[in-house]
């Protein structure tokens, strides 16, 4: 066999493994039904529509038929998609949906007060908290708080916040699947106009997002497609 035939064979063999193939990502998460309406108090006579969102086993939203129930119809009644505040008191409303594998539920306790007694909501009341922790060899740590704003939410990281300055293509996402950013929302990124924030206290304003829309904050290496760390967003 001529030398260049040897080379051709070698090139062909090596080229076989140089094609774009597929990496399988384990991105399964538990199905979830989440009441996303953040209101906690109503005044007698209010009629509002609560919203509950179904997230499938990869954290994507899907439309499902949600059934609402109330623990006390004298306080809060339910009709179609609306709830009505009847009299003063406490009642727990529950959303139910048939998931792919089980019945899913989420509940919320609402307080009904007299007309005119509804407190003016604080502009920056902290509702959610969490702590970032590394899931890799890269640095990812720090506490954070999330408050509702008039335009969306504000994520305030504490002075102990650290992202890894050596992580290539650093991006921080809000997501409903800690193993995938397929439906994530960029909060901070290396290629932002103002660059990324890596160390210390800072507030990220995220417009157009509800306080209950996402359940995880993650640090990601975008070019490598890997997670550096994550945090579950919890109620305060």
């Amino acid at each position, binding site marked *: 066999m001529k*030398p260049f035939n*040897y080379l051709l064979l070698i090139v062909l063999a090596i*080229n076989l493994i140089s094609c774009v193939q*597929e990496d399988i990502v384990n991105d399964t998460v538990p199905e979830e039904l989440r009441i996303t309406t953040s209101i906690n108090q109503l005044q007698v006579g209010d009629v509002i529509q609560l919203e509950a969102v179904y997230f499938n086993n990869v954290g994507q939203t899907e439309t499902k038929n949600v059934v609402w129930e109330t623990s006390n119809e004298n306080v809060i009644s339910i009709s179609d998609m609306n709830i009505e505040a009847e009299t003063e008191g406490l009642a727990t409303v529950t959303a139910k949906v048939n998931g792919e594998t089980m019945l899913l539920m989420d509940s919320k306790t609402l307080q009904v007060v007299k007309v005119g007694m509804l407190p003016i909501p604080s502009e920056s009341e902290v509702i959610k908290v969490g702590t970032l922790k590394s899931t890799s060899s890269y640095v990812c740590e720090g506490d954070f708080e999330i408050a509702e704003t008039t335009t969306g939410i504000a994520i305030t990281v504490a002075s102990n916040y650290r992202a890894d300055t*050596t992580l*290539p*293509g650093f991006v921080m996402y809000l997501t409903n699947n800690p193993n995938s950013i397929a439906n994530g929302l960029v909060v901070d990124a290396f290629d932002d106009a103002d660059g990324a924030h890596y160390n210390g206290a800072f507030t990220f304003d995220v417009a157009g997002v509800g306080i209950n829309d996402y359940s995880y904050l993650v640090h990601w290496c975008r070019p490598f*497609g890997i997670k550096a760390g994550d945090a579950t967003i919890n109620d305060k």
Partner: protein
Amino acid sequence: MNIKTISAFVITLLITQLSFSQWTKGKGKGYYKLSAWSLEADQHYTSSGAVDPNATRGNFTMSLYGEYGVTDKIDVVAYIPFLTRIYQNTQVSGTTGNTLQEGESINAFGDVDFGVRYGLIKNSFLALSTTLKLGLPTGKNKGGSDGSFQTGDGEFNQLLQLDAGLPYHLFTKTAYAKTYIGFNNRTEGFSDEFHYGVETGVKFWDKFWMVGRLNAVKSFRNGSLSAQNAQGSIFANNIEYVSVGGDLAYYITKKLGISFTYASAISGRIIYAKPSYSGGVFLEL
């Protein structure tokens, strides 16, 4: 993968392979090689030296390497990666089978190296030479949708190397040993580097070489480029590694042969943690 790393790795692997670079060729003589080199990795050494996973990325390079003796003491050396392919696998959900991130690839010219070797000592006991290699930014330092598919580092570097080699016999077999040290001066915010390595080879049946080697790069960490300002480069700066590997080379005729090369980083920082393979055809004239 940022080819700043890969380039250094490729160059080290390809240029040192079985070219007896401590010995100048002699006037009018030459060594030429056509190679295919491949590295595919789903894990990497991080900046702290730990091993972390990553989306599978690969680099496939076709190159020409040549050495030619201009005089008995001076060789010219060139490495031309005329086709470099950088690719990343498609990321697919194991739950739904849907594509999470499209795979991607680019094919382009890589960074050329051009150098001159000067023989300081050449006798039957010792060969000592010094080489100046210039790394030319002929590749693409940004490529793909996020700029991280690069076939070049975008900088002009100069590697000054000192090689020492000695022939010996392993039982009755012809053999050699060599070592080298080098200083790589890098520009455009990259840290300078210290290169060193050792190598030994044994010849069997007058036509088969078996070579083992260790190559290493240490960064001086004096560059300004970092992950923060490298705009998404995967391996931007301060790469380090210790790699071990070897060659198998077979002379089909007295002038023509084929070779297979294996190398793998056994420790490192900001470099892939998987082995590379290459195969080639060489010609000695």
